């Protein structure tokens, strides 16, 4: 089921008329950034990262068979579980490469989601808040908010979009829009496996392109169509054309997509491997991209989770993310930052490996798989000062409930909101900021305390850094 948010709401047009807001036309000539904003509580963003990266294991990884390992009736016998340090047991069969990088990674075992359905769960992971159908058309993705916040930091020479996605189109909710924010803060979603992405332009073609672009501009000027009658999508597309033109003329763009055969072999020729490789290249290029969201699909192992003959099983998926993330951490770790030679690019990048929920612990189900499970699961963090070799939070012996969050609010489970509060903080953004210029006039708070079923704490997970 590949529904996008847009599909959902064309059939609920009546709901959209609520409050009389129409997005079309409302923002055609809006200034690039809404001006009415306020801070709704004190924060002290860390600002320890220049880049943010989210790797989303979409479909949901089984937590008890990975980073919150619990031996149970369903555990296969060939996982080769080894002790990594005093607290951590990790399957060598599943994570041979990450096993050597755990000194840079912190595991958080106290995640809880209110969602049990992919579409809503993956929406939650991209938007940082629960899906509310009435509001959704105006809600931007986290990446778009970051793109908006970083707009002022873009330099003359920056051509790459601030926010780039990898394989967002494979996720259940597709790539989320900019909501009430200007379309220029949109994600550029790349799907390397399907060959969508890098376009290289040679010198002659560039000359022709320049001529043509100039002609396009001249025709635009005289075409006699004024600002009125132009809706938001239209003026948004114009800004896309300007960005596209700059990107096409930048030799750094095709270079970011140049993947050598040894690199492809090292990271893995799959969605997450290529996504992490592109992320590394974009971070090294530092040509405008500051936030990347990679989706690794096909983790939805309801059936045959450990069956070696099926195309996507837990072994395959874990090995893929293992090689991709381990090599990314290694490569970023050895690359010196051009801004501060004492730091590596890993020191400047906050990485979160997340999933929309976990999978049922205990014995396997009737079709040799595990179903969705939201009451306990994990997330991994690395880079930007995150202290590695750590496990925060604890679940019970079966991996069914969170018994200790592992940080400030010991008795509360960690939510996706906290993950993004931490991301915003690492990037130096005030996550309690509210924007008041929304179509519905309802304030958009970067991290909302109104969860779907309860109030949520909007604190960052400071304990990751100390």
């Amino acid at each position, binding site marked *: 089921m590949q529904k996008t948010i847009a599909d959902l709401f064309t059939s609920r047009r009546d709901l959209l008329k609520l409050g009389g807001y129409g997005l079309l036309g409302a923002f055609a000539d809006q200034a690039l950034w809404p001006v009415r904003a306020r801070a709704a509580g004190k924060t002290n963003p860390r600002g320890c990262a220049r880049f943010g990266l989210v790797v989303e294991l979409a479909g949901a990884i089984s937590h008890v068979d990975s980073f919150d390992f619990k031996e149970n009736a369903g555990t296969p016998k060939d996982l080769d579980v080894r002790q990594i340090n005093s607290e951590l047991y990790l399957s060598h069969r599943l994570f041979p490469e990450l096993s050597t990088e755990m000194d840079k990674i912190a595991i958080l075992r106290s995640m809880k989601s209110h969602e049990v359905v992919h579409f809503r769960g993956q929406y939650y992971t991209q938007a940082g808040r629960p899906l509310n159908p009435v509001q959704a058309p105006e809600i931007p993705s986290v990446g778009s908010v970051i793109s908006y916040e970083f707009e002022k930091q873009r330099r003359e020479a920056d051509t790459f979009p601030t926010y780039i996605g990898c394989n967002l189109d494979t996720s259940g909710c597709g790539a989320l829009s900019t909501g009430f924010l200007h379309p220029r803060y*949109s994600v*550029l979603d790349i799907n390397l496996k399907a*060959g969508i992405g890098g376009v290289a332009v040679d010198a002659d*073609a560039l000359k022709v*392109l320049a001529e043509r672009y100039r002609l396009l501009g001249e025709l635009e000027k005289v075409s006699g169509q004024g600002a009125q009658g132009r809706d938001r999508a239209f003026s948004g*597309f114009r800004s896309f054309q300007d960005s*596209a033109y700059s990107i096409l003329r930048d030799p750094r763009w095709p270079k970011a997509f140049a993947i050598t055969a040894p690199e492809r072999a090292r990271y893995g020729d799959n969605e997450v491997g290529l996504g992490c490789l592109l992320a590394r290249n974009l971070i090294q290029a530092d040509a405008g991209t500051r936030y990347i969201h990679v989706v690794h699909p096909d983790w939805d192992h309801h059936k045959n989770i450990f069956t070696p003959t099926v195309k996507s099983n837990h072994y395959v998926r874990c090995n893929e993310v293992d090689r991709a993330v381990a090599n990314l951490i290694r490569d970023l770790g050895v690359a010196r930052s051009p801004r501060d030679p004492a730091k590596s690019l890993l020191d400047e990048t906050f990485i979160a490996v997340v999933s929309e929920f976990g999978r049922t612990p205990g014995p396997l189900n009737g079709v040799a798989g595990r179903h969705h499970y939201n009451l306990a699961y994990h997330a991994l963090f690395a880079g930007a000062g995150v202290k590695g070799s750590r496990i925060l939070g604890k679940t019970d012996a079966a991996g069914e409930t969170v018994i200790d969050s592992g940080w400030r609010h010991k008795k509360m489970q960690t939510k996706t909101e906290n993950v993004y509060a931490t991301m915003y903080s690492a990037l130096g953004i005030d996550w309690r900021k509210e924007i008041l210029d929304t179509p519905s006039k309802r304030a958009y708070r970067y991290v909302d305390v109104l969860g779907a079923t309860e109030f949520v704490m909007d604190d960052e997970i400071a304990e990751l850094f100390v």
Partner: protein
Amino acid sequence: MVMEMPDPKLAGAESTSFMRIFGQSNRDDMPKKTLPSALQAMLLMQSSLVTERVRARDNSRVEQLLKTATNDTDLIQRIYLATVSRKPTASEIPVAKKALEPDRLHGAENLQWALINSPEFIFSY
């Protein structure tokens, strides 16, 4: 249905990915809408699907029009009619005429490209 359309001249991976970025549905799911993006803009500007199409050769539309048009104004009118289904406005004609100099063939290709990349074409067709 988009899927059943005859393949563009240049078939293969590039045309498939081109169509996907513009929201081609796959066989199983509902039609998928894709957000407009810089990627779409990039493709319209530089994908060989477009750059080859606007070439004046192999009996392409541009080549045919160049052969049959009686003069510059006529050529411009026919390119407009063929692409955006309307005649050029009085203010567009001089701009288009200038584009045809010094190289008429090259200029015609540029004009065809500019119309395909114009907001009017992208949003109405």
